[in-house]
């Protein structure tokens, strides 16, 4: 049932190849097999957004994505440059408290940006509705999102 399979995917620009159990989620693949722990376990059932990464430019919940089903390059928080405008906006707006949810928010927003367009506040709220944060009241996260992506 849990046979081992070879998973070969491109992660943050580098092709990696590992023998993993077939049931390995992308999140565990990143965290355990590659040591990329920036993507977090928040719920493991696709309801909190803490594990968000980009697959082929689209935000995906890595906890409910099997590593073997990944087609296309994966980008994680570790692959986001420090001067990315979204990262900088989070910094500027003091948008993190414990920081556990932060990578997921950033990756989700990068996905929104890749999608193109200039989302208004309503659209940003909708997009961020899939990410949970237990520390903040979301206002600074929204401010950062508006600053980095919004219509000004």
């Amino acid at each position, binding site marked *: 049932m849990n046979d081992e399979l070879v998973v070969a995917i491109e992660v943050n620009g580098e092709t990696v190849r590992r023998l993993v159990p077939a049931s390995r989620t992308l999140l565990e693949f990143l965290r355990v097999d590659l040591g990329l722990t920036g993507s977090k376990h928040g719920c493991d059932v696709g309801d909190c957004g803490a594990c968000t990464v980009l697959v082929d430019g689209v935000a995906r919940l890595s906890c409910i994505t099997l590593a073997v089903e990944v087609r296309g390059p994966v980008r994680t928080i570790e692959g986001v440059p420090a001067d990315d405008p979204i*990262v900088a906006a989070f910094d500027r707006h003091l948008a993190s408290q414990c920081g*556990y949810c932060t990578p997921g928010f950033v990756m989700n927003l990068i996905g929104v940006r890749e999608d193109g367009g200039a989302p208004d506040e309503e659209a940003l709220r909708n997009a961020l*509705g899939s990410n949970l944060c237990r520390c903040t009241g979301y206002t600074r996260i929204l401010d950062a999102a508006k600053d980095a992506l919004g219509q000004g």
Partner: protein
Amino acid sequence: MTPLIKLNASSPHESARKHVSGAARYVDDLPAPQGMLHGFAVASPHAHAKIVSRDGTRARALPGVHAVLFAADVPGSNHIGPVVHDEDLLADATAQCVGHAVAVVVAESRDIAREAAALVDVVYEVLPAILTIEESIAAKAFLGSPHHMARGDVDAALASAAIVIKATARNPAQDHFYLETHAALAIPEEGGNWLIYSSTQHPTEVQGEVASVLGLPRNAVVVEVPRLGGGFGGKESQASQIACWAALGAHVTGRPVKVWLDREQDMTHTGKRHPFRTDYEAGFDADGRLTALRARVYADAGFSLDLSQAINDRALFHLDNAYYVPNVDFQNFTCKTNLLSNTAFRGFGGPQGMVVIEDAMQRAAERLGKDPNVFRVASFYGDAPRNVTPYGMRVDQPRAARLWEELSASSDYATRSAAIAAHNATSSVVKRGLGFMPVKFGISFTATLLNQAGALVLVYADGSVQMNHGGIEMGQGLHTKMLAIAGDELGVPASAVRAMDTATDKVPNTSATAASSGSDLNGWAVRNACAEIRQRMAVVAAEVLGVPAAALVFADGQVGAPGGPSMPFAKLANTCWVRRISLSSTGFYATPDLAYDREKGFGRPFFYFAWGASVVEVEVNALTGEHRVVRADLLQDVGKSLVPSIDLGQVEGAFVQGVGWLTMEECLYDKRGRFVTHGPSTYKIPTIGDVPADLRVHLLENVEQDGTIHGSKAVGEPPLMLGIGVVSALRQAIGAFASPGHEIELALPATPEAVLRAIMDVRARSAAGAPSLHG
């Protein structure tokens, strides 16, 4: 680059860049040590059961399984618990709740451990279980010792009161739902010693429990905490069992063992905020002033004492909230049930106490068809003699009246109130409500001995600094505040100071980072340590510069006399080293002037009070019961803010968590005592869509506090209770669907379903012309 952190100035979180880059490490992110195994707990499926037999044979046979451990495998004590050791780490004779661990499986991978856990054979004989507060009361199944407070003559006051409210107030449980679930990693070290990484708010307690479970002295165990992905009280006492499972597994296998709980395990193994039931009678005079309050307070402790007695006591301390009550008779009971052992949660009983008196305010107003704020304002603490709490502590700077004045002005209360009345008169489906909530919250651990803290500061010969203190960084910005204090005291930029991970080998015998006390206690300890080092350095600088030590100023990385000679701090550090002057120091602080006699229910349990107030506007739909917060205005007294940006974030986050508790977070157990809302799909915490688009958060100005660290006040818990304002607002909106004069029966959390029921109920009574339920 370290971000710019300065005392009394808005500063980023010290780990902000690490958070946003994914570099910030939490326990589960630490690199796996060589040979690490994984532990997985086997939980009782029964709320109360005798364990007839247990057998790990089938589980052990699974390839990759290293050990299956039961109570008998514990080398030291199998009993844990923060106050009394009344919990079996691994259930021995009986399992006390669904989720009580019976065994721990240790295996090569977590997947194998989980698979093996299902193969552990335990035969249970199911016993009768207590699943509600009412069943516990009937069985007189109480834990701890009741606490009583009394003043004046309640019977006489009720007899002469213009209005008497007799009711039962209930508040719901709440799951902490920190985004980071519990984790622990136990590493055996040479010589029979231990290094434990734990996601705990209380490393000293984990140290003590692991030592006791392994039968070792505490010096054999070092507990280290990198940071937490949120705690909120849920990692105060609850972390110990997880760390002990890991330590036990590592002890038996001789290999490092990690135990990490997934969300479902976290929610089904660990305790919640206590649900309370309070039966009360409140009396008001004709002016709306509270004259008497009698309360019988019942807390659902779950299966063990944990911190329940202290939490229940804090509820008593906050039954008065911001109001002077001349005649009181308070008594609490801590009820044992066969449910998860409820525990600390931001506010620690305070919110549960306040919900009661606010219920009384609302009912009095609703019955008379008046504005509840008339009752609130008339009852505020004020000048003597209206400045003494039910437990005899003087309220030195009552701030409720000022908060009401400033907040009602800044929130445009009167105008909006009139507009809402006009709206409600014409709108039949959607009604609005405007609620006001004052908060007075006592600051200090009510167990006086816990009000102590230590620090260890090290200055290196190049002028760089390491700062250790006993507090845990869990997102609340404690390290940021401590860096600001250390930088200020040593006169160096905070970027020259490194906040070290909290560890029991740096600062011993710490209290939990809890009770909002983190910066109050550790702040003084850090400051005292820095001051000691500075004093020693000043003697050297005075010699080198030829000026009196007393004239020296340490600022901006320079040490010198104003207008006179100076030298860089780094150079001075090196000179001190050369001259063989100690550049490290501990610092210590014990809060002064605390004395509380629990037997008499009298004394000074708190160093001071933190105050705050909220004005919350809601909109309610009568067809669905759906509601939303349209706008909220918050005003919080944090003294002179150590770091305003951090404090504002705390106020906002706490308020949202309070609103979540009272409006959407529903903890449900089934009839067999199983916690069924064990994931985000069934347990709803606020999302961005639940936060009011118009949220205005301010700190009260010019309120420097005497005797506290740099004049600041605690901020962690108090603003959670600002969320109670949402209940007042909802009740007003619900009442608008019926004729005036009816008390609102709104169950909490006020989910759309509960709101809809409340609307139907009040409408039915209104249509029947029936008097109020408790009239």
